[in-house]
């Protein structure tokens, strides 16, 4: 068991996922997504926020597959800790919730990017590692296969 930490819970479709609160910068309303040609899987474009260019990564394709419902907000999170705190915008389908919960280690055959689990009433929420989720191999594989 690990001690309680703060997590931001966010919905994608009918499921909720979590990120450690210290990795989340803000929840933003949909801004103008700007796209340009590229070949990186899952990247859908960029946002301009306060003069900064923030890449947008549609992780819903990995987490719930291509049938994910329309995303309504952007959760802006840090992909890397420390000095290289590269921000990334994650489209999510509803409002987020901040919660202090005790995490449980992930067991079984969950993907590597699920670092632990949160038990909340009857809901089990996967805590994600953006760093692992967005690793090159993971993104390529997931963009092709998705995850039911």
């Amino acid at each position, binding site marked *: 068991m690990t001690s309680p930490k703060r997590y931001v819970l966010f919905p994608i479709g009918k499921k909720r996922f979590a990120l450690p609160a210290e990795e989340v910068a803000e929840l933003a309303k949909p801004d*103008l997504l*700007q796209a*340009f*040609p*590229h*070949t*990186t899987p899952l*990247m859908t474009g*960029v946002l*301009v926020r306060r*003069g900064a*260019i*923030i*890449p947008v*990564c549609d992780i819903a394709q990995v987490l719930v597959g291509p049938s994910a419902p329309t995303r309504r907000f952007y959760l802006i999170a840090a*992909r890397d800790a420390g000095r290289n705190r*590269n921000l*990334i915008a994650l489209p999510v389908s509803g409002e987020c919730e901040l919660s202090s919960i005790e995490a449980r280690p992930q067991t079984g055959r969950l993907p590597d990017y699920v670092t632990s689990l949160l038990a909340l009433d009857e809901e089990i929420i996967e805590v994600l590692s953006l760093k692992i989720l*967005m690793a*090159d191999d993971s993104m390529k594989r997931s963009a092709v296969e998705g995850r039911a």
Partner: protein
Amino acid sequence: MSVRKPAATTHRGEPMILFAVGPNTFAIAAAEVDEIRDLHDLTPSKPAFGYSKIKNKLQRGKRDYFVVDSASHFQMLPSKTARLLVLRNHPVALTADSIDRMTDVSLVQQLPSAFRGLERTWYKGLAVLDGTVIPVVNPASFLSDAEVTELRAKGAGL
């Protein structure tokens, strides 16, 4: 003691040409463009395996140029090509649907590191003009020196 470059590449009011390919607008440093012209005087290029983006060639004075189809280079749907940007330092003429305008770009920001595909070679960075993000193309990405040599060896040149 060496000094690290800042994260963003800055150009103090560097003149750039904005051009359209399909629904996208790109920027290229004006200093990299020798001429903007129409599509006259193009001749079909001998097809070369692996170089489907080159279908035509252009002879201009004593120099010959490979005409790179921009839509194909950027892996976009075919577009209505109407103009050519003849590059100054590369034997490349680049197709464009239209020339938007010339403008001074004061800041070219690095492409976010989350982008890890071919775009890292396609672009020098991103410019924000009136809130619109415009990729600044890297002229050297259209054909490398090795590719030019290979194309000429395959007889695709003039």
